[in-house]
């Protein structure tokens, strides 16, 4: 990588930060409890729209892991999400009616909040349907991981998105508020992921899983990216460039080993395919607020008309993180 390319990346980062400032103006504070954030607190950053049903379990899941404060952006929810979140003692909430797409799918808003509140903290950036699983997460809270990362001089932690799905039609078992979504969507694809290295940002581009298998079997190049770097010891100069797939400076993207070893990594269990998905994809198709002209939702819509079963004979049933680590989807690395 020559100097010009490096400078190009620097400009990209600056542009991302400028955008964050500009789009940050769209945010209206609903409940600002950021004064309660302690010096070593772990923060979670989330944008959402109409996720009232999922929120109670989401918040409790991360509270139990050891997240101390949630900073959330509500994008014009109409189902009471905003009111619910405003009441939570450990949530700071902003709301906006701005375009999700023009805020680069929420990245600009969150970059702004991270810039302002995340500096010096371990920041976890997740959607309300993403649940972080990391090595020993059943016995060691999140601060154990962040302490260890810090002692190992690591600034970022990779966790691949793992699409979870139910057996049978997606809407066969309605999800109830507060329920563990993986009681319903407990299946996943264990070994059909493909990886390419992106030389510009030095990150891996991972595709595959049930979405590639069922929805993008004819045009796999368009299948959604699954690589994510959700946990970062934030510095105000950092910026997410596209969703949580890519960060700048690019050193933060290097969450993989190239000399044959395995770095420590986790998974983001993705509870997308619940009964709400059918409704949501119809709505998103109308709003056209998603990536690449919502082509993902176009594909879903086409396939959903046939009411597909994502489950197949070789689907794996989720048990725990050790299973994922044995299957090679995540790794303990040298954390023992």
């Amino acid at each position, binding site marked *: 990588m020559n100097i010009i390319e490096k400078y190009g990346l620097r400009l990209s980062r600056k542009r991302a930060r400028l955008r964050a400032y500009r789009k940050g103006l769209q945010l209206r504070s609903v409940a600002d409890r950021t004064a309660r954030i302690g010096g070593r607190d772990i923060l979670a950053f989330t944008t959402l729209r109409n996720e009232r049903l999922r929120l109670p379990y989401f918040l409790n899941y991360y509270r139990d892991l050891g997240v101390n404060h949630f900073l959330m952006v509500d994008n014009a929810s109409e189902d009471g999400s905003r009111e619910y979140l405003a009441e939570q003692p450990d949530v700071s909430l902003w709301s906006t009616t701005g375009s999700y797409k023009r805020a680069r799918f929420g990245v600009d808003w969150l970059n702004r909040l991270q810039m302002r509140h995340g500096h010096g903290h371990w920041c976890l950036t997740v959607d309300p349907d993403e649940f972080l699983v990391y090595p*020993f997460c059943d*016995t*060691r*809270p999140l*601060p*154990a991981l962040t*302490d*260890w990362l810090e*002692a*190992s*001089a690591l600034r970022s932690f*990779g*966790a*691949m998105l793992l699409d979870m799905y139910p057996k049978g039609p997606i809407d066969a078992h309605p999800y109830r508020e507060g329920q563990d979504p993986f009681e319903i969507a407990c299946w996943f*694809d*264990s*070994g*059909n*992921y*493909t*990886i*390419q290295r992106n030389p510009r940002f030095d990150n*891996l581009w*991972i*595709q595959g899983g*049930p979405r*590639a*298998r069922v929805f*993008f*079997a*004819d*045009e*796999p*190049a368009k299948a959604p990216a699954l*690589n994510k770097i959700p946990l970062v010891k934030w510095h105000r100069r950092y910026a997410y460039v596209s969703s949580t797939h890519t960060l700048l400076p690019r050193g933060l993207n290097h*969450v*993989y*080993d*190239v*000399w*044959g*070893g*395995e*770095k*420590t*990594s986790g998974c983001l269990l993705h509870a997308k395919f619940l009964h709400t998905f059918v409704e949501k994809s119809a709505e998103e198709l109308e709003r056209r607020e998603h990536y690449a002209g919502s082509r993902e939702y176009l594909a879903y819509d086409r396939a959903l008309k046939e009411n597909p079963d994502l489950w*197949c*004979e*070789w*689907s*794996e049933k989720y048990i725990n993180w050790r299973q994922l680590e044995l299957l*090679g*989807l*995540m*790794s*303990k*690395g*040298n*954390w*023992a």
Partner: protein
Amino acid sequence: MTVGFIMLCHTALHRAEQVARHWAVQGCPVVIHVDRSVSQAGYARMVENLAPFENVRFCARYRCEWGTFSLVEAMQAASAMILREFPKVRHVYAASGSCMPLRPVEELRAYLQERPHTDFIESVTTADVAWTAGGISYERFVLRFPFSWRRQRWLFDRWVDLQRLFAMRRKLPEGIVPHLGSQWWCLTRQTLSAILQDPRRRIYDDYFRYVWIPDESYFQTLARLYSNDIESRSLTLSKFDFQGKPHVFYDDHLQLLRRSDCFVARKIWPRADKLYRHFLLRETGTRPRAEPNPGKIDRLFAKAIEQRTRGRAGLYMQSRFPNPGWENGRTAAPYSVFEGFSELFEDFETWLGKMAGSRVHGHLYAPDRVEFAGGDPVFNGALSASPALRDHNPNAFLTNLTWNTRGERQCFQFGPRDNQEISWLIAGDPNAQVSVITGAWALPLFRANIDFGEKRRAAARLQQIETEHVQVLRSPHVKARVRIWSLADFVAAPMEPLQQVLDEITPRALHRPIVAPRMVDLSGFGQFLQNLRNQGMQPTLMGEFPLNDEPFPALPVRRRPYLVK
């Protein structure tokens, strides 16, 4: 006679305080050194909380930095104080604020009582250690290190380079043989006081001040001068990972730590409440006196380092994506590639499945579909039979297949009609067993019901593809087990090569007679090749086929079983 502890603390003071209290209650004097960079308020709180214990003292504070002499100074100060103020102490145990006693103090006391003159200090010469960080082993004793490795890395490195360039070497003080080892030692009063009260201590101190990481070598070297009975091991269980930082213990290590029978462990995560609750409760139980046995923990951590540095062979994933050549196993398990066999033999896949007892696929890289065994639409690991998905990343398709089926050998057919992108992956993979009958692709062409002109064009194209493929398989970089026969040679004596290949797949089945597979009808094939020649295309890969049909020695073979041995 008892054992006294010196403790070096810089973070998580409340935990250090708990441990100090634990020892003090059981009658062991404790001298605590608190790093000078700890706030005055934090220090004062700790002093106040431990004030009720008359056998807990605080020594002069130094600002400690990793890798510098300040750590030795702190240890000297604490040791001098404990020897001076507690004359009953016979052994001094060096511990840190993140240490945790795993066994009751009485057991440690009894253990030391039985070995009243033994110094427990890991102390090895530089030639014998492999764990020195930063590539500096013996040089740490003969170069000067005035700069901080943590804060002034650039100056540190340049200064080392400079000294190497000009071959600047320090002279070691007389009588000293440098030794290294863990800084968590347990020394007798006799040895420790001899070190501290040595008339030449000024000289030694001045020397070690510019040695790198002197806390790992000061006492370890000097103890060799005075001790008569060195047991070169640490009583503290402390393991280091590949970056040279200590492994941390968490709640889930409880059973491992209990069974290790070590006296003290380091380092404990300050928020491991369960560990602190468990081990700091005074145990009254009388377990048999056991020697420390950290074997299990050693293995656990050794495995972790192995996973971090070597990884699992054949695995490509989000946190392991090796550069070319660094895969340490391109694929996860051995597999076999058959080229031209299913064209030459009728129902070869079923036959092979029976003979080899492994999974036999059709042409996995066929242009129109992935021919999984049994025609399945999905395979292990939810691998899809969609050719588009496969062709999106053909190499990953194969590495995924071998990873998903670890433990079961995979065999598949391959040929010039298939996606050729995996040629190099296979050729350079020691796990691959490749058997090629060149030119066999012409057999289906020969029987196909299409215009001869078309056959001729297809033959030219397929021959070119296979020629390139064979070139790859014959390149000097090949690591696969490659066997190549021309069609004519193979047809002349098919059983021996088949037997060879099968033996390699199932070495245990050596004594089984193998039943020959049925060869397709070859009559007229020689003429077909001649027709191609007559049309101006030169078929080269098939070998020399006779024009007339009669002399096919393979024919009798299919009528009787072929016996080996």
